């Protein structure tokens, strides 16, 4: 921006200071009085803004319905949030090592993310997968890979968050349970979560792996299986975060996330489960963007809305069903490669919003996210950010410290009002499944994404280093670059080829036959997937077999044929 250029070149090439501009910046004031999502806010909020409020029913104490102020009475005095950094760098060995590193540095939960080929449901030897094995996550093609990833980690004691979002989550759950069984654990003792939200993943590039009916089928199979067999497991993390990354507003994040959650809830009810049997294990993945107060208000509104929604719409009686449990991922899309160390500051504010909002589990982005996968130093810095908030700032002392603020309470109401409008709109379209089928939801993402870029182009939204206080482009990444080892990707490919040659064919084909029958009879597919995994069936084989039963190509990309036909 021209008026912000404080120096100009003089004729002889030396810089001359432009003092007029310095004076201008002294008197400068914010040019926008809107929240990130675009809502105009007042100069100040007063008791007048809260005159109709009924504290007990609209807000309530922390730990009490409608949980606006948090799901626990004592919040972080009882236990800090789980400090969990997402790890996934190629091979199971490398990922295990980095996860162990995060633990050694004070991380309190494991969090591993699957690679792009796995999410698509491809084995590493697939012709279109070979170039991308291990990019953006860990590659798991068999029980052997899962065993390597687990290594010596005591599965009955740690809390492990498995990030597989697509229909491949069914394979992940089976592979994890199979390894636990092989190691002699009782799967009832396993603690952790699996993302398992295939519906949302169609908006993240994995549409071929996530047809709507199969997403509901396999997603709900995982949920039903865990409800019946793994009582300590959180079996879905409805991913509002990824939706927000498309450029939508804070209220849309709530509304679309709840809409997707309802698709699974309705299916579980159709299967004869009672809402209170499964709702306490429902969790959400929420974004924290850069507008501190709006994000806190969004979280508080989501908690209140979920509590009422589960109670009133679904008739839940157990208060645990009504508690909106969530993890936060700080907003990757708020980070830019220009002046990259600024990202550390952005991440701190976003993490602070999560904590002030009463988060259960937090992943801070690493500052290098707009350049590469996290380096070890990047990961460490993200973890240290969480630790500084937890151990130094004192914000953990009091539950919902902003509760009762005229502004925060008013903004919470605003978030609820706007999110309800969007939910009613979706209802008017015939519900979320219909909004997805007719691609109405696609169009919302497209529209909002373009709007966000235009706001930055026009300077309606300011981003330091992008459209204000810019500088020469960087030539290097300050703390180095994370690369995926080509050698380990090659090894993954060789390993799966070898495995496919060496396993017992008869045992395998019997297990695949049972999986096919269970899918065809509309039984839960997870037990058969566990059995097939123990017979060394691969990820693509598990998923491809079920795909075929549902009338889809064995291979999501329709390049290779089923080896079992």
């Amino acid at each position, binding site marked *: 921006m021209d008026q912000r250029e404080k120096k100009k070149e003089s004729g002889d090439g030396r810089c001359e200071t432009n003092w007029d501009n310095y004076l201008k910046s002294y008197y400068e004031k914010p040019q926008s009085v809107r929240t990130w999502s675009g809502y105009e806010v007042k100069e100040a909020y007063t008791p007048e803004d809260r005159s109709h409020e009924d504290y007990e029913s609209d807000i309530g104490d922390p730990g009490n319905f409608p949980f606006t102020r948090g799901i626990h009475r004592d919040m972080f005095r009882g236990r800090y949030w789980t400090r969990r950094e997402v790890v996934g760098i190629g091979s199971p060995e490398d990922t295990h090592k980095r996860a162990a590193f995060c633990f050694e540095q004070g991380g309190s939960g494991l969090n591993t993310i699957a690679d792009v080929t796995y999410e698509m449901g491809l084995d590493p030897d697939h012709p279109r997968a070979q*170039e991308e094995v291990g990019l953006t996550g860990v590659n798991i093609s068999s029980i052997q890979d899962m065993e390597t990833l687990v290594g010596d980690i005591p599965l009955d004691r740690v809390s492990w968050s498995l990030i597989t979002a697509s229909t491949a989550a069914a394979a992940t759950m089976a592979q994890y349970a199979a390894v636990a069984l092989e190691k002699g654990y009782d799967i009832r003792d396993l603690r952790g979560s699996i993302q398992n939200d295939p519906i949302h993943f169609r908006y993240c590039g994995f549409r071929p792996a996530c047809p709507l009916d199969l997403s509901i089928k396999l997603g709900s199979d995982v949920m039903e299986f865990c409800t019946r067999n793994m009582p300590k497991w959180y079996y879905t993390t409805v991913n509002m975060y990824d939706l927000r990354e498309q450029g939508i507003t804070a209220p849309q994040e709530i509304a679309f996330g709840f809409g997707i959650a309802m698709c699974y809830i309705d299916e579980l009810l159709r299967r004869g489960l009672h809402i209170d049997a499964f709702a306490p294990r429902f969790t959400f993945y929420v974004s924290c963007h850069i507008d501190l107060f709006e994000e806190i208000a969004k979280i508080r509104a989501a908690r209140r809305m979920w509590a009422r929604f589960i109670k009133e719409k679904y008739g839940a009686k157990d208060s645990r069903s009504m508690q909106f449990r969530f993890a936060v991922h700080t907003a990757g899309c708020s980070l830019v490669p220009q002046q990259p160390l600024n990202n550390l500051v952005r991440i701190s504010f976003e993490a602070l919003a999560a904590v002030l909002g009463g988060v259960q589990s937090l992943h801070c982005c690493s500052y290098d996210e707009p350049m590469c996968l996290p380096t070890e130093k990047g990961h460490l810095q993200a973890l240290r950010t969480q630790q500084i908030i937890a151990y130094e700032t004192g914000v953990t002392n009091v539950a919902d410290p902003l509760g009762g603020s005229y502004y925060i309470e008013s903004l919470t109401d605003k978030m609820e009002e706007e999110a309800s409008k969007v939910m009613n709109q979706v209802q008017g379209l015939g519900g979320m499944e219909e909004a997805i089928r007719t691609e109405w939801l696609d169009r919302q993402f497209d529209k909002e994404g373009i709007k966000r870029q235009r706001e930055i182009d026009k300077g309606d939204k300011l981003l330091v280093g992008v459209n204000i206080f810019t500088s020469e482009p960087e030539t290097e990444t300050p703390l180095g670059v994370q690369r995926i080892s080509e050698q380990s990707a090659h090894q993954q490919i060789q390993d799966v080829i070898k495995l496919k040659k060496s396993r017992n064919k008869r045992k395998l084909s019997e297990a695949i036959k049972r999986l096919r029958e269970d899918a065809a009879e509309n039984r839960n597919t997870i037990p058969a997937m566990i059995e097939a995994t123990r017979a060394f069936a691969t990820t693509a084989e598990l998923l491809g077999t079920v795909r075929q039963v549902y009338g889809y190509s064995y291979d999501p990309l329709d390049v290779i044929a089923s080896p079992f036909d």
Partner: protein
Amino acid sequence: MRTVQGKTSMTGNKIRVIVSKVGLDGHDRGAKVVAALLRDAGMEVVYLGMYQTPEGIVRCAIDEDADVIGVSYLSGEHLVYTPKLVAEMKKGHLEDVLLLVGGSFPPEDIPVMKEMGVDEVFRGGSLTDSFVQYIRKNVRRQS
């Protein structure tokens, strides 16, 4: 004023851009937004979407008589697919087609991609004007 030889399109001398993802990476928001903004800037855009191969992109560029190919990378696949794309463009004699890259990658890889044959690179945080102006100034057309 540029004139364009051999173009048969009804849209006359509009600049034609192919926007695509390559491989399995699903981060398509940037590519979609760029495609829409180029269209708003008066260019004719063919948006190929996800799961494209270098061969397919080049075939499309030939069929559509494109002036520009723009690809978007966000999962570290840029060093794998860029050389393949450049090789396919050579095979297809697309020397006069601009190759632009956008997305997330380390700044260290920008000179590497330029060395491979990429004309210009736009990282996340690029303003629309920067790539629209770049295309207008640098589009290589026979006159």
